[in-house]
C-alpha cells in the first residue's frame, strides 16, 4: 500500500483554493437572499395575522426537519419540472449553482428567521414605546432603536447559522457543481482514488480555517457593536 503523503496535502491546497470564489459566492448569495426571506418570515411570526403566522411556523418546522441533501435533490430534480409545467420555461441547461442558491436560501431563511425573531423579542417593549413617545415614527423606532440592540443579541446565533450554512454548502458537489468540494472530488478521481485521504484532509483544513476566521471576525464585530451596551450598564 502507498504510504500517506503529507506533501500532497500542501500541494493540493492551491488547486482547491482556485475554486474558493465559487464556494464563497454560493455562501454569500444564500446568506443574502436567505436573510431577506428570513426577515419576511420573522416579521410574519412577530406581527402577522393568523394565516401568515401559521404558514411561517409550518415552513420553519418543515425545513428544520429536512436534511440539506434531500432538499438539494428535491430542488435539483423538482425545480426544472415545476418551471416547465407552470411557465413553460426550460432550464435544464442552466448553471447548477442556481439550484444550490435556491436550496440554501430556503434552508438559511428558516434558521435565520428564528434567530431574528428571538433577537427582536429579547428587546424590551418599553424601548419601542419610549421611541414612539418622543415622536419617532414606527419605522424610525425600529431602524434606530430596536435594530441596533437586536443585532447585538442576534449576532452569535447568526454566526452559528452562517457556519452551518457553510458546512451544509459543502454538499453542493453532489449535484455536480464544481466548487471546492467538487474540485476535490475531481482531483480524487483524476488520481484514480489514490490520493483521496490527502485531498479530503486538505479540504478539511481549508474549511476549518474559513470557519475559524468567521468565528473570530464575528467575535470582534460583537465586541465592537456592544460598546454602547457597556456604557448604559455603567
Amino acid at each position, binding site marked *: 500500500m502507498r504510504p500517506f503523503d503529507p506533501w500532497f496535502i500542501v500541494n493540493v491546497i492551491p488547486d482547491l483554493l482556485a475554486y474558493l470564489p465559487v464556494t464563497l459566492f454560493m455562501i454569500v448569495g444564500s446568506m443574502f437572499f436567505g436573510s431577506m426571506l428570513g426577515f419576511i418570515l420573522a416579521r410574519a411570526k412577530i406581527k402577522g395575522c393568523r394565516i401568515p403566522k401559521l404558514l411561517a411556523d409550518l415552513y420553519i418546522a418543515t425545513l428544520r*426537519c429536512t*436534511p440539506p441533501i*434531500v432538499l438539494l*435533490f*428535491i430542488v435539483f*430534480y423538482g425545480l426544472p*419540472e415545476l418551471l416547465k409545467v407552470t411557465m413553460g420555461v426550460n432550464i435544464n441547461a442552466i448553471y447548477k449553482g442556481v439550484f444550490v442558491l435556491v436550496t440554501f436560501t430556503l434552508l438559511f431563511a428558516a434558521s435565520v428567521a428564528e434567530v431574528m425573531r428571538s433577537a427582536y423579542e429579547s428587546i424590551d417593549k418599553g424601548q419601542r414605546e419610549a421611541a414612539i413617545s418622543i415622536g419617532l415614527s414606527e419605522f424610525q423606532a425600529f431602524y434606530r432603536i430596536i435594530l441596533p440592540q437586536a443585532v447585538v443579541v442576534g449576532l452569535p446565533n447568526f454566526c452559528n447559522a452562517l457556519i452551518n450554512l457553510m458546512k451544509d454548502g459543502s454538499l453542493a458537489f453532489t449535484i455536480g457543481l464544481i466548487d471546492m*468540494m467538487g474540485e476535490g472530488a475531481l482531483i480524487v478521481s483524476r488520481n484514480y482514488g489514490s490520493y483521496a485521504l490527502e485531498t479530503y484532509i486538505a479540504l478539511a483544513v481549508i*474549511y476549518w480555517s474559513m470557519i475559524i476566521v468567521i468565528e473570530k471576525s464575528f467575535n470582534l464585530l460583537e465586541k465592537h457593536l456592544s460598546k454602547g451596551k457597556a456604557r448604559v450598564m455603567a
Partner: protein
Amino acid sequence: MELDVNYMIDTFFLALGGISVTLQITIVALLVATPVAFFMAISKIYKVSIIKQIVSGYVSLIRGTPMILQILIIYSLVPSLINMIVKGLGWDFNVFDVNPIIYAYIVFSINTSAGLSEVFRSALLTVNVGQLEAAHAIGMSTVQAYRRIVIPQALVVALPNICNLTINLIKGTSLVFMMTVKDITAIAKIQAAFGYNYIESYIDIFLIYIIICSITQLLFALVEKHFGSYKSLKNA
C-alpha cells in the same frame, strides 16, 4: 409535472425499512458519545491543563469541518488502518467483509461527542455552585453530588439542546449512503434509479424525515415535561 403516485406509495413503504438503520446509527452515536462528551465537558470545566486544550482543539476541528468531509475522511482512512493492523497481526480477515455501518457508527460518534460536550458544559455551568457545596456540606462525595444533585438539574437545562442535536444527527445520517450503508436515502435512491423517478423518491425521503423528526421532537417534549416537573413544584 406528473408524479407517479403508485411508485411513491410503494417506495415510501420500502424506504420505511431504512428507518431501523437510521435509528441504529443515531442511538449508537448517542450512547457512545454521552460518556465521552461528559468527561470532555468536566475536563473543560475543571480546566485540566493539557486535556482542556486537546478537547478544545478537538471540538473546534469537528465543529469546523463539514459532516460530508468527516465521512469521506473516515471512510478512506479507517478501512486501510484496519487492513494494516490485521495484516500486521497476520489474521485471516478481509476488510471488505466489515459492515459499512461500523464506519457510520465511528463518524457519528465522533461528530456527536463534540457537539454534546459543549451542550453538557453549558448545562453544567448553569447549575449554581452552591448546589454542589450544599451537597458536600451534608456529607455527599463529589460523585454522589454530581449524580444526585447537579446532573438532574443540568439535564433539564440541556434537554432542548440535546433535542436539537439529535435532530441534526438524524438529518446527518442521510449522508451515510456515501459509505454504502442502506438507509432511507439509499433505498429510495436505488428504487429511483430503475425508472428515473428521482423527484418522487426524494419527496418520499423528505416525508419520512419530517415524520421521524416530528416524533423525536414530541418525545423530547414529553421527557422535558417529566424531568422539569420539579420546577413547577418549586414555583407552587
